[in-house]
């Protein structure tokens, strides 16, 4: 029983990471109707920036928040320079750009920061917490991801900029007609998604260690979570991310073993697409013929 509780709690901790990345995927999906395959590599690159700043001598939290700002700016730049011209392009061209972006950022990470596996510091105490069920880092990172998710929720729900960003993604034509600068809203969405990814990268790096491919598996889990909850539902994607974290941990511990854990993500993806393509909380898109 103790083992089960431990597995669930640690599943929630990794689930928070998946939930953050899933949320970033959904934000860009809602605005562009594409999956940003490069989301994970962007997060890895951000984590390298954080490590560089920390090695430079900055205190952890200063480096952390500076990384969020830098990632935000990089996300905005990527949207304006690479994604904007794809607005009216055929689906396959856009997919090509996203895959290209994945490979380019992956190579840039390796080129700038080399391919060796690096340790990444945690700002949280190392001793176990809550009667040994959870490590200090797991507890701290769960707290941080929850804080980010709540902040993002409050931003989109209760600020007029957040409302304008939702309006721009849902109905760009009408958004322009109320004076919203739709192009900038989409760019801000990319910036925000990049910053959320940066948080996920910094929180997961102390556990999985930092290398240019750090996020590739995590992106797969996050994608599974987003699909499970519904790719067009931010809340669904977040809950899906947590669910995938728990399923992965329990499955890895009791059913398939650690070797096949990643396969579990693919099983979830295929199962969702077969049984309920819109996900648990997604809506079917109906278009008039």
């Amino acid at each position: 029983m103790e083992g089960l509780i431990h597995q669930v709690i640690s599943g929630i901790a990794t689930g928070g990471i998946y939930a953050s990345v899933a949320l970033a995927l959904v934000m860009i999906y809602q605005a562009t109707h594409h999956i940003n395959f490069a989301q994970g590599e962007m997060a890895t690159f951000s984590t390298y920036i954080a490590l560089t700043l920390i090695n430079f001598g900055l205190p952890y939290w200063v480096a952390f928040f500076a990384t969020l700002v830098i990632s935000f700016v990089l996300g905005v730049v990527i949207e304006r320079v690479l994604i904007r011209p794809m607005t009216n392009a055929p689906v396959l061209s856009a997919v090509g750009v996203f895959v290209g972006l994945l490979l380019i950022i992956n190579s840039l990470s390796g080129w700038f920061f080399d391919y060796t596996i690096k340790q990444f510091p945690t700002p949280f105490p190392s001793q176990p917490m809550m009667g040994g069920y959870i490590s200090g880092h797991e507890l701290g990172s769960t707290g941080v991801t929850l804080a980010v998710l709540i902040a993002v929720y409050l931003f989109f729900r209760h600020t007029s900029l957040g409302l304008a960003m939702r309006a721009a993604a849902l109905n760009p034509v009408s958004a322009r007609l109320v004076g919203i600068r739709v192009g900038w809203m989409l760019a801000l969405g990319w910036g925000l998604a990049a910053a959320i990814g940066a948080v996920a990268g910094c929180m997961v790096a102390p556990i999985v260690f930092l290398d240019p491919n750090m996020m590739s598996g995590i992106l797969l889990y996050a994608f599974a979570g987003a699909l499970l909850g519904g790719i067009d539902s931010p809340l669904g994607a977040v809950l899906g991310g947590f669910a995938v974290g728990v399923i992965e941990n329990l499955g890895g511990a009791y059913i398939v073993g650690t070797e096949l854990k990643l396969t579990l993500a693919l099983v979830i993806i295929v199962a969702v697409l077969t049984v309920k393509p819109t996900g648990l909380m997604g809506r079917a898109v109906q278009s008039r013929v």
Partner: protein
Amino acid sequence: MPALLEAKDLHAAYGETKVLHGLDFTVEEGGVTALLGANGAGKTTTLRAICGMVRTSGQILLGGEPIQGSATEDIVRRGVAHVPDGRGTFMELTVEENMRLGSYTRRDTNVAADFDRMFGYFPRLKERFRQQAGTLSGGEQQMLAIARALLLRPRLLLLDEPSFGLAPLIVQDIFAILRRIRDSERVSVLLVEQNASLALAFAEDAYLLETGRIVVAGKAADISRDESIRRSYLGY
């Protein structure tokens, strides 16, 4: 004093297909101008051209200043509110959020009072305030679209077929409210309608469009009295 809106030799095209072939028209300050014509005459395109939503050539002056070639959101920010065909409702958002979006560009603090004024015109919106806009009826969505446009505090209101797809009784309601709005808001209106008798009874000036050209221009009252125009163009 210049007209609020003046179009000179206005052309518009969707890709290779030319839709407007050199329109000249004006919308006077404080008045209602109607744009009439059959399906495909170019009425909706004219409104889109004013808002920079289609490729145009020629000149469009708002209060004497050229606006052609500007981005839609910039034209809107200069005081042009467009109630588009299909009403442009943000279906997934609530009525409240739709209305808040209408006042998005405003920095003044009178928005709450304006919300109350909109509830005065459209009590239904108050009842449905927290509801998802996609669940509203067609008439209610039309009301929401007009409220959203007025919340911009526009100088010029472009109305694209407010009667479209609505039951006759609801159309009467909406035009009664539009009259009240005309009398109490400081806004000029350019109205596109297929229902010519309705539009001519509401407007002071009118233009009749046929395949992208203006064929008749004049006072709405004169046009509705002219039997030959009525018979040959308006069909009633």
